């Protein structure tokens, strides 16, 4: 089972760490946009920020 456990631990660990890094990056950028005095694009609405015409 040790290979199976290692496979699950690595896959879920990396996905979890990447998910947390995404949330931290988003939070920092949202704060930066707020501090710069302009609401972020789509802050309260859609996050597409530029739907194709």
């Amino acid at each position: 089972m040790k290979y199976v456990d290692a496979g699950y631990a690595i896959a879920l660990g990396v996905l979890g760490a990447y998910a947390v890094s995404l949330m931290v990056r988003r939070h920092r950028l949202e704060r930066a946009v707020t501090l710069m005095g302009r609401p972020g694009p789509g802050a309260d609405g859609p996050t597409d920020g530029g739907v194709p015409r």
Partner: protein
Amino acid sequence: MTRTATRWLGAAALVATAATVWLGLWVTPPDRVQGDLARLVYLHPALAWVSLYLAFGLAALSSLLYLWRRTRSLFWDRLAASSVEVGVVFTALTLVTGSIWGRPTWGVWWTWDARLTSTALLLVLFLGYLALRRVPADPAVRARRCAVAALVAFVDVPIVHFSVVWWQTLHQGATVLDPGLKLKIHGSMAWTLLLGFVAFTLVFAWMLAVRYRIEVLSDAVGDQELDVSLEERWAEADPPATGAAPVGHQLGHEGVLSPPVPVAPPEPTGTPR
């Protein structure tokens, strides 16, 4: 996608992944040939499905839509960039979980098999795409460049897919469906495998939504930083009375600096040489 929808998507992805792990590790029976090692089947093919077909497929489609004049929009460029970054994470995990599975079954962590080599090449190609995005350039130039790079890299995806058919490989052929589209796995193993595909698809969708938001915010912050630094430069260079832009530069649309305007040489003052 609204923030609430993203949250619900994240919650659904978390529940589906937890259910896959629970079923895969504790509920499904061991395989007759591979024993407990077969439990990696609920992980490895689902990761490969997301990286090869969803992430890089979406990146290629978005790049194509960016290059096509009628649908050209930075939306497609941002979507492609977000999809590639998430896809690279999934591809790396596909290789790692495959290597972990290969060690006890093949006796080696790595072999230069056609499927493994073409997948490793795919990872390198899309890492190159991410590196290309970091090269400073005008947004439109960067988007066009990266769209072409994504399409070139995507050529490797069908090679990865058909590698087990075209060449004699150590890697097994189709795992889930045979060429006649008949399911090759049955019972609880089949359902858990299917749930794994759904779970990682939901994880990809959530990561893509968050990563896309980061791309939009990065562009907004970049534009604002440019505006602020330009204003500071003008304040340093200009007397406050005029408030005009310094000679030789004009601010174009959306805070993008236009090419310098040619400045006429100063009139000769008649000073003797």
